């Protein structure tokens, strides 16, 4: 099988998975979902590490290090901020129950 066709297959199947997997999201979660997806593409950090680690040109090394910093900001910051958002969705449920009980 042609190598390019294998890549194309992976690409097309991923498109369908990507759409299918979020197709039932409620609008409440649009913002965290966008933010989480944003963090996932921060995995370009992996690419930046590989490219930077295999260069022997000083300018390329400098550019690569900049790419690593940027990608790490994207990836780490993205996941942390998404978690911060989602924390708020989870925390309040137990908080309300005792309050309701106390009223009655």
């Amino acid at each position, binding site marked *: 099988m042609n190598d390019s066709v294998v890549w194309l297959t992976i690409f097309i199947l991923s498109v369908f998975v990507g759409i299918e997997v979020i197709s039932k999201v409620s609008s409440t979660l649009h913002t*965290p979902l966008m933010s989480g997806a944003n963090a996932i593409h921060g995995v370009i950090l992996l690419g930046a590490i590989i490219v930077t680690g295999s260069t022997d040109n000083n300018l390329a090394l400098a550019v690569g290090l900049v*790419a690593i910093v940027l990608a790490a900001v994207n990836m780490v910051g993205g996941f942390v901020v998404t978690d911060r958002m989602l924390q708020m969705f989870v*925390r309040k449920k137990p908080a309300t129950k005792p309050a309701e009980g106390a009223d009655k």
Partner: protein
Amino acid sequence: MIPTWAQLLYLFGAVCFILALKGLSGPKTARNGNLVGAFAAVLACAIPFFYGDLDHVPLIVAAIAVGTVGGVYGARTVQMTQMPQMVALFNGVGGGAAALVALLELHEIVELGGDVQKFTLVATAFTILVGSVSFAGSIITFAKLQELMTSRPVIIPGFPILFGGGFIGAVVLSVLLVHEPAMWLGIVIGLLGLLVGVLLVLPVGGADVPIVISLLNAFTGLTVAAGGYVLSNTLLLVAGTLVGASGTFLTLLMANAMGRSVSNILFGALKGGSTLGGGEASDRPVKSAGPEDVAIMLGYAERVIIVPGYGLAVAQAQHTLRELVDLLIARGAEVDYAIHPVAGRMPGHMNVLLAEAQVPYEQLIEMDEINDDFKEADVVLVVGANDVVNPAARNTPSAPIYGMPILNADQAKQVVFLKRSMRPGFAGIENELLFEPDTTLLFGDAKDTLGKVLSSVKAL
């Protein structure tokens, strides 16, 4: 060549990312989904350190540390109201990183010479171009939302020529690059990408910026996917494609919720149908009242619906509002929050802001579920919102927001607007509802006036 164990771990990472997205789309599983994604991303980035011969390891680790500290600091300190621009910024730097990675890979290709697959060069050019578009576009969105620049559409004379010229130029150079790889071509493509990115976002009006963030997020995803092809890395390809596809779909969902098409959002301002209206305050007569009057209306109402908007969050009045609602419920009223899909600055943003103020999830009712209840509501309290209850979206075909689904606040018996001034909302158009006889306006800072209403209700 990547060793088999590493490839298998990449596959594992790809599956984790799919599960992460799946988790993120359900309220109960969202947090775990995000953690699964984070775990997979960290694992994936550790893999290259354990195979092959990675040079400059100390420098690389230092750079990762710098980025991590920066990212965590930004993510921890950002206020929830400023979330959208933070996401835009994270997205932008990701796009920038992808473009730089592709430039480095091009450098490698040029140095080594030899036989390179044409399609690899196509993907390289694509990554450089779209990565820079995403970077520059995101920076402009950030500037717009952070109000470092005007949030109104900016239209430069000769815009179509500049934009078209920049885009076509980049495509022509990409074709040249595929024929004869050269470093300068890559750099010029990147610069043109920056120009196109800036021009793409400038004419977009304030209210539509979040949709552009989502679109640029999808762009970055596709960039990462193309970068994965260039580097022959399946994980990058799958992760990037997942984000690209789901991001595009999410963009369409959001645009739908606002009743707008994506092309209209991007190019609407150029056709004259600006996404922002005049933005001027009107001097037509309105009925205004003091906090005590509003307290009486609320205190004796049986059914109250709260319509929260971005102004509420800006005034940091969520906690006071929640206290007021708790008090009304204790007095026997039925109170719910009506959440418009695009309340706040992004879809779902309002839920995050109210959740931060510990408002119970069950009181947040989505538009479709609550819209029929408005006609039975005694009082609708609109706090810092405007466009989402503007009947012009239903009645005035010439209005920029025409077609956007709105909350039926105008069907309620009484409407109370808490506003700072008569200035129009984010979309910059006048709201007819303000001039209705059943509408009462309470001017002032939301936190301040809500506090006064709260103490007046307590005194009833």
